[in-house]
């Protein structure tokens, strides 16, 4: 069974469209994340949710809206897609947050988004 899964794996779309990427984890973790990996392979956090509540929101355009229907799911909706949004988007999860101990984050397989 896949621990952290994302759909779709590949997404090719036109500029201006709206698209969503879904993420699910079956690890029973409380915290989920979205990361963006750009063309230079640099990975940076976008959002973090702890038990359906937004914890971290980096300086991401408000065209990006995460939604967490329950603690096992964290979806990413992107409005009015731009060329610069082309990247690989990774979802991740970890057992807990904010308790100072630090925990391993487990990553999904990534979604490769190409905006034409």
């Amino acid at each position, binding site marked *: 069974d896949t621990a952290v899964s994302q759909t779709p794996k590949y997404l090719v779309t036109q500029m201006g469209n709206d698209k969503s990427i879904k993420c699910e984890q079956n690890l029973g973790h409380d915290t989920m994340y979205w990361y963006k990996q750009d063309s230079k392979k640099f990975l940076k956090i976008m959002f*973090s949710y702890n038990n359906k509540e937004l*914890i*971290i929101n980096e300086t991401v355009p408000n065209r990006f809206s995460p939604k967490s229907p329950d603690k096992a799911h964290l979806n990413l909706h992107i409005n009015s897609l731009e060329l610069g949004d082309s990247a690989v988007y990774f979802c*991740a999860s970890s057992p807990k947050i904010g308790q100072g101990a*630090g*925990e391993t984050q487990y990553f999904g397989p990534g979604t490769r988004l190409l905006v034409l």
Partner: protein
Amino acid sequence: GIQVEQSPPDLILQEGANSTLRCNFSDSVNNLQWFHQNPWGQLINLFYIPSGTKQNGRLSATTVATERYSLLYISSSQTTDSGVYFCAAITQGGSEKLVFGKGTKLTVNP
């Protein structure tokens, strides 16, 4: 925020060689992880190692938290070890943002 720097940026080895990858971080950490991103783009957890030493087969890692660095050792490298190795850290007392280094691209030639 915390800065994470990795060296070298690129490394080319012959199969069977050993290598050491380094990760320096600018602040005390309560989470340090090493990842391998394979040529297909998958991010694979290698180690969770905020301090101490761990070994897993041909790979081992050591973090010296007081001196703010971590090392990843790859012994008897294989072509399947090729890819990008990332170090990532979370600072103590800060938000739970995992901050990544820029990675070391490893190529192992047969």
